């Protein structure tokens, strides 16, 4: 069998930062892990549109409405870039969508929280997109070519998302007493779920070592989480708000912020389908897909008819 030689060549290429392309030989486990990782990420982009779509019709001004629509539209684009990157690994779009709708595939647990006030649009942009960027920037150098290229495109677009979020919070933080309370309340609700976005602690994520060897993960969960906390702990000062963690303080020795324990029980609960909005989110996706079925069929029938009549558009 040539598998041994092949896997040595494969790992050599990765060690030398030579990208793996769709038709290159790759270990089955690499392919499977990537399909799972990329499709989960795609699902997160798509489901992630729902909490924000909730506020489009109620945005406080035309400017806010236009930027929120643009942001949500970007997230749809991110989902599409990632679905097509995953498809190059041999899984079909329908399979992925089925996996999402049947609950077999996961998406980021953060999107199972409700968006209660307009300030949530700010907190999501600042914290949720902020955490996503922290995760995604290193993946621009992921070993799988189509994935890395999709991430480059995504990262270019994300920084506007985070800035528009922070601007929303900044405006509220300079507003009335009620607006300031709303701002703090949104930060209080979104902080811990955002910190959890980086996934389990390193000692509880057994696949990290393999993924790092394959360069489809470039930093550990805890490294990225620490970086996120360090940055936010400074940025929140500009808002004159606080982060809801009484153990958050600068550690001179470590040159990092220390922070309090994470409620992993809650994390597992939400991942396993018991978050405040899991059912609602999935139901909305399934309904959109089913409601769109006749459009997909009609478009296909129309395309076939045009071919029959010999005028390909």
């Amino acid at each position: 069998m040539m598998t041994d030689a092949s896997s040595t060549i494969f790992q050599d290429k990765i060690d030398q930062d030579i990208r793996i392309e769709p038709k290159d030989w790759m270990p089955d486990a690499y392919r499977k892990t990537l399909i799972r990782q990329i499709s989960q990420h795609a699902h997160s982009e798509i489901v992630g549109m729902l909490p924000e779509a909730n506020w489009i019709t109620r945005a406080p001004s035309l400017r806010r409405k236009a930027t929120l629509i643009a942001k949500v539209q970007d997230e749809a684009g991110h989902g599409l870039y990632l679905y097509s990157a995953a498809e190059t690994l041999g899984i079909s779009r329908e399979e992925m969508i089925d996996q999402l709708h049947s609950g077999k595939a996961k998406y980021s647990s953060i999107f199972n929280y409700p968006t209660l006030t307009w300030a949530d649009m700010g907190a999501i942009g600042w914290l949720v997109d902020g955490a996503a960027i922290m995760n995604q920037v290193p993946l621009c150098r992921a070993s799988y070519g189509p994935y890395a290229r999709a991430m480059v495109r995504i990262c270019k677009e994300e920084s506007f998302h985070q800035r528009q979020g922070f601007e929303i919070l900044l405006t509220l933080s300079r507003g009335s007493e009620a607006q300031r309370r709303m701002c703090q309340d949104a930060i209080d609700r979104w902080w811990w779920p955002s910190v959890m976005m980086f996934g389990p602690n390193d000692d509880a994520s057994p696949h990290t070592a393999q993924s790092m060897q394959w360069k489809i993960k470039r930093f550990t969960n805890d490294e990225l989480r620490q970086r996120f906390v360090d940055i936010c702990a400074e940025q929140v000062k500009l808002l004159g708000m606080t982060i809801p963690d009484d153990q958050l303080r600068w550690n001179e020795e470590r040159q990092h912020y220390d922070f309090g324990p994470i409620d992993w029980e809650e994390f597992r609960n939400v991942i396993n389908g018991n978050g405040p909005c899991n059912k609602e989110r999935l139901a909305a996706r399934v309904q959109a897909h089913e409601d769109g079925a006749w459009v997909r069929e009609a478009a296909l029938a129309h395309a076939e008819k045009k071919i029959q009549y010999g005028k390909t558009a």
Partner: protein
Amino acid sequence: MEKQHNWPLWEIFIRSRQGLDHKHVGSLHAADSAMAIENARDVYTRRMEGISIWVVESKYVHASNPDEASSFYDPANDKVYRHPTFYDLPDELKHM
């Protein structure tokens, strides 16, 4: 008759500026070429990344085989004389 239910996959190529080649940017699903072009505009040029779009149905793309890459490109390997630097000429020679 069992009909094909899914929109085919298209490869998208975009010319970012006048004077540059169309470059592959990714793929998407669409029922026909007109829809593929419109979807490509929405998916790949939201920030004026392009002024021209080509779409090709993926099944029509034929590719060289990466497993044969070494033998396939081998003939070009030992022909350094195809490059101008191969030729020994005095420094005094100008405009060449």
